[in-house]
C-alpha cells in the first residue's frame, strides 16, 4: 500500500532534509539582514562617538595651547615668565631627600600673585 501511494520513508527523509536546508538558508538570510541593520546602526553610533571624541580632543588641545596656558598662568595664577637668573638648580640638594633641602626647594622664588 505504502509503495502504491509512493510513501517511501527514505524519500520523505530526503524532502524533510531539503526543507530543513531551505529553512536554514532562509533563517540565515534573515539573520544576515538583521545583523546588517545592526552593523549600520553601530557604525552610525561609532561615527557619532568618534565625532564626540574628536571634539573633546580639540578642546584639550585648545586648552593646552601655549597662548591659552600663558594667559591663564598670568591672569589666574599671577605667574610671570622666568628669566634664567631667577632659576636655581636644586637637582643635587632636592634629590638627597633631606628635610632642609626639601623645604628649600619649596621656597617661593617669585612674589605673590599680581591678580
Amino acid at each position, binding site marked *: 500500500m505504502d509503495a502504491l501511494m509512493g510513501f517511501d520513508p527514505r524519500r520523505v527523509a530526503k524532502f524533510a532534509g531539503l526543507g530543513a536546508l531551505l529553512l536554514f538558508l532562509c533563517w540565515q538570510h534573515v539573520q544576515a*539582514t538583521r*545583523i*546588517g*541593520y545592526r*552593523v*549600520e546602526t553601530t*557604525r552610525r553610533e561609532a*561615527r*557619532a562617538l*568618534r*565625532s*564626540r571624541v*574628536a*571634539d573633546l*580632543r*580639540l578642546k584639550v*588641545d*585648545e586648552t*593646552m*595651547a*601655549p*597662548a591659552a596656558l*600663558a594667559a591663564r598662568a598670568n591672569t589666574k595664577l599671577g605667574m610671570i*615668565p*622666568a*628669566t*634664567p*637668573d*631667577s*632659576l636655581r*638648580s636644586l637637582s643635587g640638594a632636592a634629590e638627597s631627600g633631606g628635610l632642609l633641602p626639601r623645604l628649600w626647594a619649596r621656597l617661593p*622664588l*617669585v*612674589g605673590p600673585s599680581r591678580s
Partner: protein
Amino acid sequence: MDLGLRLTVAAALTLSPLLPLGARLAYLQVLRHDNLSTRASGEFARTAKEAAPRADLQDRHGRVLARSNPSWSCFVDKAMVKDPNAFGAKLSPLLGLPASEIARKTRAAHRFAWLKTGMTHGEFTQLAEARVEGLGLVPAQERVYPNGDLARGVLGLVGAEGNGLAGIEMSQNKRLNGRARRMDVIRDGQGRSIYKNVADAGDEPEPLRLTLDRTAQYLAEEALREGGEKGQFKEGIVAIQDPRNGEILAMAAWPPNPLRNPLVQDAFEPGSTFKVVTALAAVDDRVVRPDELFSGEGGKWQLTPGVTITDHEPEGDMNLTQIMERSSNIGVAKVVERVGATRFYRLARAFGFGAKTGAPLPGESAGELKPLSDLTKVGLAASSYGYGLAVSPLQMLGAYSAIANGGTLWEPKFFADGEPPVKVRRVASERAVREISLMLEGVVDRGTAASAKIPGYRAAGKTGTARKIDPLTRKYSTSAYTASFAGFLPASAPRWTILVILHEPKGAYYGGLVAAPIFARLGSRLLALEGVPSDRPAAPTLTARR
C-alpha cells in the same frame, strides 16, 4: 479512457497556464539576467564612502599642530527643489542660516551648491532626521588648528576639498592625504542601509612630525607680537634653528599669514650681518693678521671717484675684531680688497647664498648673489657689507648656524622623521670659524649689539641695518630700513641660532637697538625654559627676592 490518460490530461490542463510564466521566467533569468541584475544593484546597492582622513601635523614632541575632525557638509540639488523659499524656510532653523540666504543659494545654483560645511554631528543628525527633499549630506573632514595662528605660516592651510593650499599642508599634501574607507550597503524599501561588506579598508596615514617646537614657536611669535601690535615695525621675522643638526625649531612672522612664509619665500638685502662672510674669508685664508690695523678714514672713504663709503660713526685704526664690533663698512670694504672677489664669492656660495636650501616648503627663494664677473671694485665692496645682494632668512639662519657649530652647513631639517641630518658641506676651517665666533661674542660684549646681552650667558651675533629700496624711485630710501640681528647662544656650546629681521622699524632703526633686544628676550626665555646652566658666572651681587 483509462485513468492514466485522464490524469495526464488533467495535469496538462492544470499546468498549461504555467508554461508562459515559465517561459517568461527563463527569459528574465537567463537571457536578461545580467542587464536586470545590474539595474537592481543600481537601485538597491550603494557604496557608502567615509571622508578621507588627513594625517595630523605634530611638533617635535608629538603635540598636535593641525588635526582633522570628522564633520559634515550639506548641499542642495536644485532639480529636486520645487519652491526655494519654502525650502529655505524649512531648513533655516536646522542650519542656523537665514531662509533668504538658503533660497538665494538654491536659486543661484546651476544644479548643485554647498549650503553649509563643517557641521557637527548634532546638526547632521537633525538634518538627516528631517528628510528634506533636495538636501544632500556628505561626511567631510574639517582641518582644525588647536593652537590658533601658531606657526600658520609654516603649516599653511587646507581648502574645502581637503587639499593643502599653502605651507607644509600643500607641499606634503600627498603624504598627508589618506584613502577613504568604502563599504558596500543595500538600501531597503524605506531607504535604510544594510551593511554588506567592506569594499576598501582605506588608508589612514601616520601623523607627520615636524622639527618645530611648539613652545619655542610660541615664544618666537610672542617676542614679535608685542612690537607688531604696537606698530613698531611693518613686518617682522624670527627664526630659531638648532645649529647642531640644522633642525628648524621655530619660524615666526608678523603679521601672521597662513598663505605666505616670508622666511622661505622672501629675500632681503642683509646689510652688516653679511660681514661675517668677508671676515671669515679673510681669517680662513689668513689674508689678514689678527693684529693688522685698517684705517677707518674718519668715517668717510672715497672708494672710486663718485663712490664714497661711510660709517655711522667716525673711526680711526681698527683690527678685524674691532671692525666687526663697530660694524665698520669702510673697514670691511678694505678687508675684502685683500680677500679678493674669487675667495669672497667662493665662500658666499659655500654658505649656500644664491641657491635654494632645499626646504620642503612651497615658493622657496634662492636669493640673489651677483656672479663673479659682476663683482667689480664697487660691487665687491658693497657686497662685503651686505648690499647689492639678496638672501633669504633661511639662508642667513643656516650660515650663522654653520658658524655656531664650527663650520658645518646643514640642510634645514623640517621633519622629525628619525633620519640623520644632511650635511651640505664644511664652509671653512674650524680654526677660522672659532676665531669668527669670538669676534661675534665681542660684538655682543663690546660692540653694536650690547642689547643682545643675557646676564650669566655668553651670546654671539652680528647686527645689521640696511636701507631698503624705495619701489617708486628704485633708489635706496632715506627713511625705510631693514634692521636685523643674527646670533647664537650659549656661545660656549651653541644650542640655538636665532635670526631677527624687522622691516621698516619706526623710530630707532639700528639692528642693535631694535632687533638685538628681541634676540635677548627670546634667548633668555629659551635658556630658562631648558634650564641651561650659566656659562658666564656673574660677579657676586646682592639681589632682593621678589
